[in-house]
């Protein structure tokens, strides 16, 4: 206890006169903690909002969802519940076309049909307000004030409420008409708030809401239509939640209904958020680690400068433990201060994050500093600081008191003996293990933490090796004598005691991640855009009848701008029943294989081999098929997952028809999914006779003609669903953009941490730099020349870091895209170039800023001090 008191007092005294290095220590920790606190805090804020508004976000106490129409048994159970005083609402959601009847423009919308009384909780707010409230409002959720424009009740017959984005897309205003399926609707108002639509912008299109009664008249729910049905429940007695859940699950078993209640607070969103938080926490941990490297560096330099003080303390009677404690306390104090600063920054980030994440989440947030998150930030900051200073602090043991006695007596200074190597390796292992545990804690998963640390350790080793190699190469560069500044600058990079490799490592990590994410994002986008090669379809129309499909072909053939028009494919929907007569339970399948039995497949039939496919096994059918035989061609992946061979018998239950058993006669590999092939099951003609089918029509349309063609289709086939590939790409790319931006934002902190390390190592070599600058000046160099020499040194460091980062991130992007995701990778020079140049500019800028006082030093003043 007494020795702790001494260490505490002594630590405070030592810190009185600590200067800039403390600042770097603080910043290095603060940056890492900030990212973490920002992300965790944001997550906490969203979670608490989800929890707070749980009922509102579900618009009910309980909900059962299914992706097929409810059956007799389920409906009967709901009627039974109604007699117990439980209110029930049927909500149907589907994707469909909405058409401007005047201009014939159309767009994909997310159509929602509601029943009177929706929502049970929360508010449906419209503009103009309240116009649609034609029945007595239901009781608002406890504690919710009813806002202006809030509507519960009924959407009048023939009226549609729409999202503002629909009006923009179709050039309509409130009061205009809108065609849904075969029916015209009057736009009654804009939906400004819909309680149970949280992840609004992940959708495929704008919202359109009509009454359940009207939906039936649109003709949209015909054969092959996909819709989600849910029943919202309001329970008068909240104590029976469990019993009702069980009852519902049982009643909707045939439809595989999913029951959830408000206590789960949006399980999908929560899961998404948790995943994202775990992932981003790990990304932010990278900046914490870079910061940790900075802390280790600062501490090492600090201890180096304190060798005399340490030796003197030992001379006047201090034990190793005491001296170490003095410095450990300093590390802890700085770590606490740095973490506190980081928590403050992190709070600021929380304020910014919603803007970065943007409208991906439509929840009202109250951003505050959650004490749990702050504590987590503090702990992680402290632990990181301690783990990264283990090795420099352990070095205190090596300082011999004889050091101050007579210099010649002590040659131990700064050298490692064999024993200390063993110790360093042991401490490194402890630090690595500790960091892996922190990572696991942050990610909430053990395996993630260890994989992450393992991967990162590998990446750091790779970067370190590359950095050391690059510095060696720089040493080899022989420049002509006339490039004086460049020669000197390069010489500075590899002079003895240079921290070049460490700086390149620190900067390189950030560059690698930010550039890597950018390349991946662009690569994925390219994969989708680049590769609609000429001839492949860009317009898809689904849900046509056989007659309509023929009409489609005739109409479009006459339409200018249509480049190619493959025959429409019939689509029949079906589920797997058995393979070789064995049901799912009797087969030995992987988890994925078992899941495939729950899917509803789109199957087709064809006489000719689908485009963009090659036969891997067997042969495509030609000529006539033996009477009584049913043949099917299976996609390679399906064959693998389901263990299908040539000759296997596949039994499927087709929607609206009898079960079909067909023999696998060939296995097919799809070479390009965008060509519209990619059916897992292609039957031979005749195999699906008597099974009702809709038709999928495809066309390649010149972009200039796209609008006219879409209008034509919308007016002729109002119940069909049209998908324009470009619209989808816009949605996908905007979501991808957002996600990539968030990752870059968080990863950007590691660059910041790298710059702090750069600055701190420049400041730690200030004495040497000042001497250099003065010597140059004394030897006749102008201020500008000295400036150039330093700028050259920093530019070289930045260039090497940028290059190393670029090489690694390009390799990583190639590996991920080509090897893991198995899509093509095209090298793009521009982002890589921007990355490298950006790194150079930042490095020079921060470097020069850290050297300003050195540049200002007057020769005489410095030389006299010697």
């Amino acid at each position, binding site marked *: 206890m007494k020795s702790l008191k*001494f260490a505490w007092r002594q630590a405070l005294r030592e810190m009185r006169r600590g200067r800039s290095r403390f600042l770097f220590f603080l910043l290095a920790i603060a940056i890492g903690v900030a990212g973490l606190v920002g992300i965790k805090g944001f997550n906490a804020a969203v979670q608490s909002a989800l929890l707070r508004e749980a009922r509102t976000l579900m618009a009910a106490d309980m909900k059962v969802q299914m992706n097929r129409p409810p059956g007799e048994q389920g409906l009967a159970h709901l009627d039974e519940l109604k007699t117990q005083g439980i209110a029930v609402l049927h909500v149907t959601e589907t994707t469909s076309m909405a058409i401007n009847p005047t201009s014939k423009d159309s767009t994909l919308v997310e159509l929602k049909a509601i029943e009177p009384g929706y929502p049970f909780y929360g508010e449906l707010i419209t503009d103009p307000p309240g116009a649609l409230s034609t029945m007595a409002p239901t009781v608002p959720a406890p504690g919710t004030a009813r806002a202006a424009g809030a509507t519960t009740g009924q959407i009048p017959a023939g009226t549609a409420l729409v999202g503002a984005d629909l009006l923009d897309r179709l050039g309509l205003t409130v009061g205009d008409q809108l065609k849904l399926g075969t029916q015209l609707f009057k736009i009654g108002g804009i939906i400004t708030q819909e309680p149970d639509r949280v992840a609004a912008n992940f959708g495929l299109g704008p919202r359109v809401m009509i009454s359940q009664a009207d939906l039936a008249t649109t003709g949209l729910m015909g054969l092959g239509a996909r819709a989600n049905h849910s029943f919202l429940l309001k329970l008068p007695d909240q104590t029976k939640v469990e019993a009702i859940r069980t009852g519902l699950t049982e009643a909707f078993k045939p439809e595989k209904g999913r029951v959830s209640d408000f206590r789960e607070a949006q399980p999908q969103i929560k899961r998404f958020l948790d995943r994202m938080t775990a992932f981003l926490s790990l990304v932010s941990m990278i900046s914490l680690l870079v910061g940790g490297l900075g802390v280790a560096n600062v501490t090492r330099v600090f201890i180096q400068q304190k060798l005399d*003080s340490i030796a003197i303390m030992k*001379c006047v009677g201090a034990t*190793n433990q005491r001296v170490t404690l003095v410095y450990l306390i300093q590390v802890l104090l700085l770590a606490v201060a740095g973490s506190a600063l980081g928590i403050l920054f992190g709070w600021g980030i929380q304020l910014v994050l919603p803007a970065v994440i943007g409208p991906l989440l439509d929840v009202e947030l109250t951003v505050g500093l959650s004490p749990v998150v702050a504590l987590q930030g503090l702990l992680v900051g402290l632990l990181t600081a301690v783990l990264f200073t283990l090795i420099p602090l352990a070095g205190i043991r090596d300082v011999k*008191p*004889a050091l101050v*006695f*007579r210099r010649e007596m002590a040659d131990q200074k700064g050298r490692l003996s064999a024993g200390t190597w063993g110790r360093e390796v042991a401490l490194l292992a402890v630090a690595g293990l500790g960091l892996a545990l922190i990572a696991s804690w942050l990610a909430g998963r053990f395996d993630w933490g260890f994989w992450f640390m393992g991967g990162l350790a590998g990446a750091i080793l790779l970067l370190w090796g590359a950095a050391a190699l690059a510095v060696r190469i720089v040493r080899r560069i022989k420049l002509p004598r006339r490039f004086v500044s460049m020669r000197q600058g390069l010489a500075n990079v590899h002079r003895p005691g240079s921290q070049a490799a460490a700086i390149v490592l620190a900067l390189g990590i950030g560059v690698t991640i930010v550039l890597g994410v950018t390349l991946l994002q662009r690569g994925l986008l390219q994969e989708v855009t680049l590769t609609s090669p000429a001839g492949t379809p860009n317009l898809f129309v689904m849900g046509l009848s056989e007659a309509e499909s023929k009409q489609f072909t005739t109409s479009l053939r006459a339409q200018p701008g249509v480049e190619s028009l493959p025959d429409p494919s019939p689509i029949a929907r079906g589920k797997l029943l058995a393979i070789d007569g064995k049901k799912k339970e009797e087969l030995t399948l992987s988890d994925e294989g078992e899941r495939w039995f729950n899917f509803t497949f789109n199957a087709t039939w064809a006489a000719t081999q689908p485009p963009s496919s090659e036969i891997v096994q067997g042969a495509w059918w030609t000529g006539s098929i033996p009477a009584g035989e049913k043949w099917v061609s299976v996609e390679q992946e399906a064959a693998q997952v389901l263990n299908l061979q040539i000759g296997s018998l596949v039994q499927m239950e087709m929607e609206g028809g009898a079960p079909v058993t067909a023999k696998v006669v060939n296995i097919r590999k799809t070479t390009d999914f965008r060509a519209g092939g990619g059916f897992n099951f292609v039957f031979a003609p005749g195999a699906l006779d008597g099974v009702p089918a809709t038709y999928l029509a495809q066309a390649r349309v010149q972009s200039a003609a796209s609008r006219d063609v879409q209008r034509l289709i919308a007016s002729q086939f109002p119940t069909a669903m049209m998908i324009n590939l470009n619209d989808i790409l816009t949605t996908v790319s905007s979501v991808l953009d957002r996600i990539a931006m968030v990752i870059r934002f968080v990863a950007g902190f590691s660059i910041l941490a790298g710059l702090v390390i750069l600055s701190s190592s420049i400041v730690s070599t200030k004495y040497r730099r000042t001497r250099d600058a003065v010597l140059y000046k004394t030897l006749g160099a102008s201020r500008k020349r000295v400036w150039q020499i330093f700028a050259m040194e920093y530019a070289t460091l930045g260039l090497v870091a940028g290059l190393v980062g670029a090489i690694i991130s390009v390799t990583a992007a190639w590996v991920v895209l080509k090897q893991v995701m198995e899509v093509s990778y095209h090298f793009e020079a521009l982002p890589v170039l921007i990355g490298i140049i950006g790194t150079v500019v930042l490095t020079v800028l921060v470097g020069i800023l850290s050297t300003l006082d050195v540049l200002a030093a007057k020769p005489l003043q410095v030389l006299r001090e010697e």
Partner: protein
Amino acid sequence: MLTIKGLTKRLKSGERELEILKPIDLTVPAGEVLAIMGPSGSGKSTLLGLLAGLDAPTAGSIQIDGVEITGLSEDQLALLRGQKIGIVFQSFNLIPNLTALENVALPLELLDQPEGAPARAKELLDAVGLGNRGHHYPVQLSGGEQQRVALARAFASRPSLLLADEPTGNLDTATGQAIIELLLQLNREQGTTLVLVTHDPELGALADRTVHLRDGVIVKEERRERVAK
């Protein structure tokens, strides 16, 4: 007080082995002022370093107050120094981040006697004539002043043995003179055993006894009556 038997120190220097100290025997009674003199390279500083426990001898024994120190661990030696040995260095070796007063108080704090430390430190600074400079940092003091603070620090824990290594080596003659007088005066007042290394014959002449070292061997020993002041 101090008994040295067969003390030997060899150092490896590249391929060959240097014998810095050939076996040395020496006894210093309590309260004596002993000067160790000799040209540079004679081994005198090595001897002092060994006495302070800053380095381990190759062979031989050192007993301080009957305690054998050659087998002690680094930390045990540190504790021993804190309790029994004061050291004055040629280059002062004050801790730059501590004020004069704090530098003097440091050994007492390390002995876990922080309560009386400031008062004792002030008393010692008064004794070396720097009572009003306690709040100054080492860089704000002249060389002589720094050495006086170092003297005060060396006496802070009332050590029974004081080791001084060229205490005047970095000072001009007049200042050096003042430091020596102070050293001897404190020594008398506190009854400390004093071993000082010097190559300054004037300083050597003030000791009770002088041993001359050359090439690691005691070549001459002089004993004189101290002039009573």
